[in-house]
């Protein structure tokens, strides 16, 4: 429930349901049950047009501006004021209106500027102007401060307060606690798609160290985490890790991440953090898929060659988050997919021997119990869990020793998850090492020997086995200090 003139914060882990809720509000998704009341009246949001008409505006993280149109054109796209000749635009009126809106938001930029010339913060203002021009009375903002500097955040909050005074109701999605306490009036915590707690934020903010008010933070964290059943996926946790397989020192990558970490043989090391923390970017940088600016990566003591090709040759493996777009060739067979990373190793002379290929492929299929009627089946017909196994199998055939798993259990069912973790368990038991990125905190706690936590594109801490708990991970992932 959001009252006019208030900011209602939505808080939740990755996958708690925030984005789905947003998409329902803007008419892009249809709810299965329940109702939405706007101004006390039931509202049916069947399409973006419906949402607009009812005064709901959503500002996503990816902006919907057209780069080479000017600001006024962007604000009024599709609703341009008409000129005397039908089809023409009354540019003077359009720019005047745009000017008025931008002034109201304190944006001092010429309306004739092209959208791509603005910085991110300014583009955000234009997005807000666009929403306001549609007489939005309910504004939903998704992680609005993700790309803003501190000063820009201050300005944004001034505007938000101004909007509050005008009676606009704002739904504000964020995980930055300090900001939440600054700007929010109420807070609702979502978990597994449900509202698990909603309460007012005290306006007692003289002490900026209110964040240190552990009572509040603890309440929130506990609500977000809930009580989970502990699962056991590991035969035995790693007591005596082997040699260092991956050593990353002061890495700085072009995509903005930085960090230092180690992974030793026999370990499953977790890489945790909230969305936007930079985990995938770090993995890509380590794997050579994104460019490294400074620092070092060493695999089994030696620096790998350039790019993913060099990483693979050095024994690294990457099981990507988007397995279909980055890990598999859907139109090719299981056999072809399984062998693609191991071609060089299996056939050093470059001659592809069909018999040997078939043997190697069926070997992997059996080891991982990939459910497929034949190795010639096209991968696109396999279930999510089996597709994931094919990706893992690819690296088995290549003889990798260090594996990076990025959200390995996304989109696969409980049974397949268990199987996957057993695979990981067996991998490290035989001397390999695993770095696992996961947003499923219970899984991180259940599977990993220890975990690094990332926040704002940097590694901010390490949790050893004894300290590894969901609360600790979340605390480290959100603490802004």
């Amino acid at each position, binding site marked *: 429930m959001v009252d006019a003139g208030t900011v209602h914060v939505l808080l939740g882990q990755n996958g708690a349901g925030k984005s789905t809720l947003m998409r329902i509000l803007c008419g892009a998704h249809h709810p299965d049950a329940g109702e939405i009341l706007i101004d006390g009246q039931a509202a049916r949001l069947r399409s973006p047009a419906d949402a607009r008409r009812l005064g709901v505006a959503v500002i996503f993280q990816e902006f919907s501006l057209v780069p080479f149109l000017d600001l006024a054109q962007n604000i009024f796209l599709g609703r341009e004021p008409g000129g005397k000749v039908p089809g023409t635009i009354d540019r003077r009126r359009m720019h005047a209106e745009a000017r008025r809106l931008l002034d109201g938001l304190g944006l001092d930029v010429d309306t004739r500027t092209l959208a791509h010339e603005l910085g991110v913060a300014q583009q955000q203002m234009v997005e807000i102007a666009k929403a306001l021009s549609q007489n939005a009375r309910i504004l939903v903002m998704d992680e609005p401060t993700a790309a803003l500097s501190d000063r820009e955040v201050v300005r944004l909050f001034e505007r938000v307060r101004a909007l509050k005074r005008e009676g606009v109701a704002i739904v504000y999605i964020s995980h930055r606690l300090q900001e939440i306490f600054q700007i929010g009036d109420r807070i609702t915590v979502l978990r597994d798609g449900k509202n698990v707690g909603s309460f007012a934020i005290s306006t007692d903010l003289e002490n900026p160290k209110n964040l240190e008010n552990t009572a509040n933070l603890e309440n929130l964290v506990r609500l977000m985490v809930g009580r989970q059943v502990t699962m056991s996926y590991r035969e035995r946790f790693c007591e005596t890790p082997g040699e260092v397989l991956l050593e990353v020192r002061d890495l700085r990558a072009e995509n903005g991440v930085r960090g230092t970490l180690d992974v030793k043989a026999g370990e499953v090391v977790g890489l945790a953090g909230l969305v936007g923390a930079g985990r995938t970017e770090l993995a890509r940088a380590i794997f050579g898929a994104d460019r490294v600016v400074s620092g070092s990566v060493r695999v089994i003591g030696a620096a790998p060659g350039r790019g993913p*090709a060099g990483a693979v040759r050095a024994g690294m493996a990457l099981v990507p988050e988007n397995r279909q777009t980055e890990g*598999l060739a859907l139109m090719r067979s299981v056999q072809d997919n399984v062998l693609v990373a191991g*071609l060089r190793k299996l056939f050093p002379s470059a001659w592809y021997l069909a018999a040997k290929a078939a043997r190697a492929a069926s070997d992997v299929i059996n080891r991982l119990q990939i459910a497929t009627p034949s190795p010639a089946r096209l991968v696109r017909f396999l279930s999510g869990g089996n597709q994931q196994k094919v990706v893992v199998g690819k690296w088995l055939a290549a003889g990798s020793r260090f594996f990076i798993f990025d959200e390995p259990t996304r989109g696969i069912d409980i049974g397949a998850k268990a199987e996957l973790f057993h695979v990981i368990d067996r991998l490290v038991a035989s001397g390999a090492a695993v770095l696992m990125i996961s947003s499923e905190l219970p899984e991180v706690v259940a599977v990993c020997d220890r975990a690094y936590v990332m926040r704002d594109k940097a590694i901010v801490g390490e949790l050893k086995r004894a300290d590894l708990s969901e609360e600790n991970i979340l605390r480290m992932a959100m603490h802004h200090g």
Partner: protein
Amino acid sequence: MKTVAYRLLAVALIATGLSLTTEAFFTLPNILNILRQASLTFLIASGLTLTILTAGLDLSVGANVGLSACLAATVMKSSGSIALGAATGLAFGALVGIVNGMMVTALKLPPFIATYGMLWTLTGVTYWFMGGDTIHGFSPGFRALGSGYWLGVPVPIYVMAAFLAAGGIFTRYTTFGHEVYAIGANREAARLSGIPVRARLNLVYTLSGAMAGLAAIVYLARLNSAEADIGEALTLPAIAAVLIGGTSLFGGVGSLMGTLVGALTLTLVVNGMNLRAIDANWQPLVTGAIVILAVWIDVVTRQRAEATV
């Protein structure tokens, strides 16, 4: 391979239809002629197939054949050595391929526009180089390569078979070939699987150019003359042959065998039109329509496949 079988069946159907309705079709000279012509088309289309397998395209093959043939002819005439001329043509074709490859990998230009620019560059240079002249009159020994027979079968068919064998071995029995298919099926996944994508793309475009150079020699032998315009009408039929043969513009799907079948199909259609005395000017029209149809089938097949993912 299943789809190739279907297409072969289509060829058989067309052939049957023609032999029933057109008198001069089912005669030995005509059949051999069809095979010879299909072989020539196949030679040009084979390199093109490789580039399309990587989800790319080499639009310059036709012009490449034209210029390579003219250069080869010039060297042959001026040096008196067939071998030297042939080597020149081959080398130049490969050189064009190398440049195309660099534009695509190092300069990251979209393949179709880069090779399209190359097409016009080569065309212009060809016309300038030949200056309106024609070079003709080669030795019978050389001409046999294009127009001759060996054991009763036109020689180009042997060349075609050799290309097919070599290409088939490359695509199916070398790691390079498998990597090419992987790149075409999903370039990023291939890269993240450790395949050196840029190196392979360079290889593929170079091969495409080299094969065009080889094809130029055979063409030269067949036509027994070199003029500036030989390359112009070659690109569209080559593309048609590849597409009819089931190689997808989206990459990762297709085969050289398919291209051969496609070349056969196209040649049959053209032959049928010729035998029925249809104005030769209809041919580009028919070829164009076939290309559109083939692309449409390709897109629909891909959309249907993606819908079930």
